[in-house]
Structures are given as C-alpha cells and as structure tokens.
C-alpha cells in the first residue's frame, strides 16, 4: 500500500502535476470545442498552467528569472486575446456565427 505522505507533504511535484493537469484540460478544450471564444479561453488555461510551473520553479530554486518570464507570458496572452477576439468579431460580422468551421473560409 502506498504511503499517504504525499497528502501531507506538499512538494514541487504537487505544483507541477497541478500545472500538467491544467494544461491537459486546456488542450482538451482546444481540441474538442467549436466556439472560437471558448477556444481562446482554453488557450488562456494552457498559458496559466505554464505560468504556475514557472512560478513553482522560481520559488523552489530561489531564482526570480521564472517570475520575469511570467510577466512576458502574461503580456503575450493579453495581446493574443485582443487580436483573437478582434478576428472573432470580424468573423461574426460576416457569418453571424462563431463556430470554428467558418475559419476555413479565410484561406485564399
């Protein structure tokens, strides 16, 4: 029988596994959903998962480089959300629908 010390000793692994679970949920959302808005939300989930592991390593190795990187990731995430939502608005203006399959009309 495995010991239950993993329940009471919070280590770096706990945070990393939490981050991995969050990343998997975000990936499932990107793959399975059709609504472009929910797709962007799932991408935000994945970016947050990465942020958690950055901060975890930064805390356990006592270096602040990870936290600086989290700043950069947050900026990129905000920019990505702005551009993506502007694209979604223009898709919606044209098709009255935000389903991902309308993005195939973008080619050409």
């Amino acid at each position, binding site marked *: 029988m*495995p010991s239950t010390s993993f329940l009471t000793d919070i280590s770096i692994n706990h945070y990393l596994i939490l981050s991995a679970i969050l990343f998997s949920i975000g990936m499932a959302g990107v793959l399975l959903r059709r609504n472009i808005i929910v797709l962007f939300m799932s991408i935000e989930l994945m970016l947050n998962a990465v942020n*958690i592991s950055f901060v*975890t390593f930064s805390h356990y190795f006592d270096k602040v480089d990870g936290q600086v990187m989290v700043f950069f990731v947050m900026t990129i995430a905000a920019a990505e*959300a702005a551009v993506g939502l*502007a694209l979604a608005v223009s898709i919606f203006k044209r098709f009255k629908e935000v389903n991902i399959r309308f993005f195939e009309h973008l080619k050409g």
Partner: protein
Amino acid sequence: MTADVFIFWFLAILTIVSALSVVLMTNPIYSALSLAMTMVSVAAIFVTLQAYFLAGVQLIVYAGAVMVLFVMVLMLFDLKNELQAFSRGKFTGAIKVGAVGILAGLIVGAVGSFIMAGKSGAPVTPEASTSADATKALSEHLFFNHVFGFEALGVLLLVIAVGTVALSRSKGGTHAKH
C-alpha cells in the same frame, strides 16, 4: 494536516474543477465565469508560492482586463446555448480524446511513480521573505537584466493595439471585398 497543506489541496481542487467547467459548459457565459474563477484561484496559488506581486498582476490583468474583454465580446455576439458545442466526427473525436488521454496518462504515470518513490526529497523551501523584499528583487531583475525584453514588449503592445483597432474598424474585417 497543517494550514498550508489544506490551502494547497483546496486551491488545487478549486482550480481543476473550474477549469473543467470552462471546457464542459455549453453556455459561453458560464465558461467565462468559470475562467474568472480559475484565474482567481491561480492568483491564490501564486500567493502560496510567495509571488505576491505576480498574484496582484494576475488579478488585474487576467481576472480584470482579459475577462472584461471576453465578456464584452460575448455581449456583442448575443449567443444562446449552442446546438453543437463540441466537434463532431467519431474518428477525429476518438483521436482527440486519445491525444488528451495520452497526456493524462503521462500525468498519472508521474503521480504513480512519485507516490511509489515514497518521499519526494526534502523540499528546499527558501525562508519566507516579506512581500516588499520579493517585489524589490523581482523589479531589480526585470529592469537590470531583462530591460530589452521589457522595452520590446512595450513596442509589441503598441503594435497590437494599433492592429486590433485597424482590424475591427475595417469594413467586413478580414473579408473586405476588393
């Protein structure tokens, strides 16, 4: 069970449940609310990791600005419950679920080997610093060692702002007839 352990498990379960409801809710408004809940609990996780300033930034940028952006766009769209929220196709759906399952299996393997290995090594927790010290160290690092990245991000944000305004102002958006 000490308070730290309880707080960690509470936050972990809260984060995972709200992240799952982002993906599983069929009404996008509920997805947005669950995403806000996820952001708040991630900010609390940052606090438990003694990244106090990042927790504040997370609350302001994600739970504030990005969520307002999402909710505003949802308000523009006037969406009801979607008839077909999830992608269809049995074969591709199986592939997608399989891909997620492989990743989840990796996680379960990691958890299993981690439990089987017994103890995980003594965590080298640095001594608790005050939030002012941590923020000072972070700002010195950001403005001394990464100042070029900081300036580049400023330029990037300006370009993004101009591009977004241009994109949403142009007639027909990306589908302008020539």
